[in-house]
């Protein structure tokens, strides 16, 4: 049941993943499997993970995000995390959970831009 609360939509070649407001551990675990599965099926170029509804993010969730980012990377895609609230950012920082090298964006719009312009950005000086 909790898995259904997680929404994964494919927009062109990008997977748009939206986390529910108060995700339990089962939902967080489902995130990784479903995202990787969707990556395989759809040959998407990247993942936008929107956590704007989430008002508390624990260490398990943080580790799962960092892990999933790495796994998506191994499958040839990029992950952009978006919608972290200021209060959540402060808590994460204080707990030392910096989400590794996960790319972040201020808004879904920008996240899409980052993924779309990814190749062009590399070519710039």
């Amino acid at each position, binding site marked *: 049941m909790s898995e259904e609360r997680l929404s994964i939509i494919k927009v062109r070649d990008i997977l748009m993943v939206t986390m529910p407001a108060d995700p339990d551990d089962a939902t967080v675990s489902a995130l990784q499997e479903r995202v990787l599965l969707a990556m395989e099926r759809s040959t998407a170029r990247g993942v936008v993970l929107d956590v704007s509804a989430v008002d508390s993010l624990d260490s398990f969730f943080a580790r799962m995000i960092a892990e999933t980012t790495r796994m998506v990377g191994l499958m040839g895609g990029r992950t952009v*995390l*978006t919608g*972290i*609230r*200021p209060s*959540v*950012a*402060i808590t*994460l*920082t*204080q707990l030392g959970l*910096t*989400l590794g090298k996960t790319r*972040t*964006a*201020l*808004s879904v719009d*920008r*996240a899409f*831009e*980052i993924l*779309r*312009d990814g190749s*062009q*950005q590399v070519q*710039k000086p």
Partner: protein
Amino acid sequence: MTKSTEANTLERPSAANQAGAVLQTTAEHFRMLVDNMKDYAIIILDTSGRVASWNPGSETILGYRSSEIIGQHFSRFFPSEEVQRGKPEMELKVATAEGRSEDEGWRMKKDGSRFWSNQVITALRDQGGTLCGFGKVMRDLTERKRAEEKATLQAREIIEISTPVIQIWDGILMAPLVGTLDSERTQQLMERLLERIVETDSAVALLDVTGVPTIDTRTAQHLAETTTAVRLLGAQAVLTGVRPAIAQTLAHLGVDLGNITTRSTLAAGLRVALNLLNLQMVSGNGSGRKDAQ
């Protein structure tokens, strides 16, 4: 009393006379002290809390003449909300049980205005231990209270003023830091900065430490935390105003600022910010820029 002492000790009249005189002068001195004390209201209450004696200081502080207040209950010095809470009875109860009761709070003058008062109530007991009444000493500390309130308010204002977050360009925020950065200030700065980043949808935040005299390990860590939090939101922080002295300290402290872009001047930082925005906002054909606006 003096007379009976004289009669019983005829052999040593001079000593007795002297003692009596001393007693009398002491009592007189005390009366003079009470009468001349203008800064303290010294009031005697009977056991039920009615005013039995009233010194000129009381008149100065509370505004009642002794003729109009003697026999009245002392609860009229309390604001109505305190009376409802049973404060006057409470004071007498504590003084009866423990011998004294001290308190600070707003009290009422005759004209209805309030003053901040420090008061001590002492239970007056005779030698047998029977309660005869209460002595109440009040002081008007309104000015001190106001000064304290003002100081607290100013301290809060200074903290707020000292951590402004300014939008200096579309998508660029700047936080000029002035003075010593302690944990409280850095925490406040972090909260403000993050909120403003979300509000203004700014991709770059310049933290300018030109006005910060010295940086220690903790401050450096706070700054590193702030930049991490900024990154989590999807924006980037640039530390500017790193003067030679600050650069030396940071290098010696061995604080890891590896992920943070730093520049020596605000101008250089602004250039970095503009570059970052160009990379993000102007796509290959320039349509990205138009979309953003």
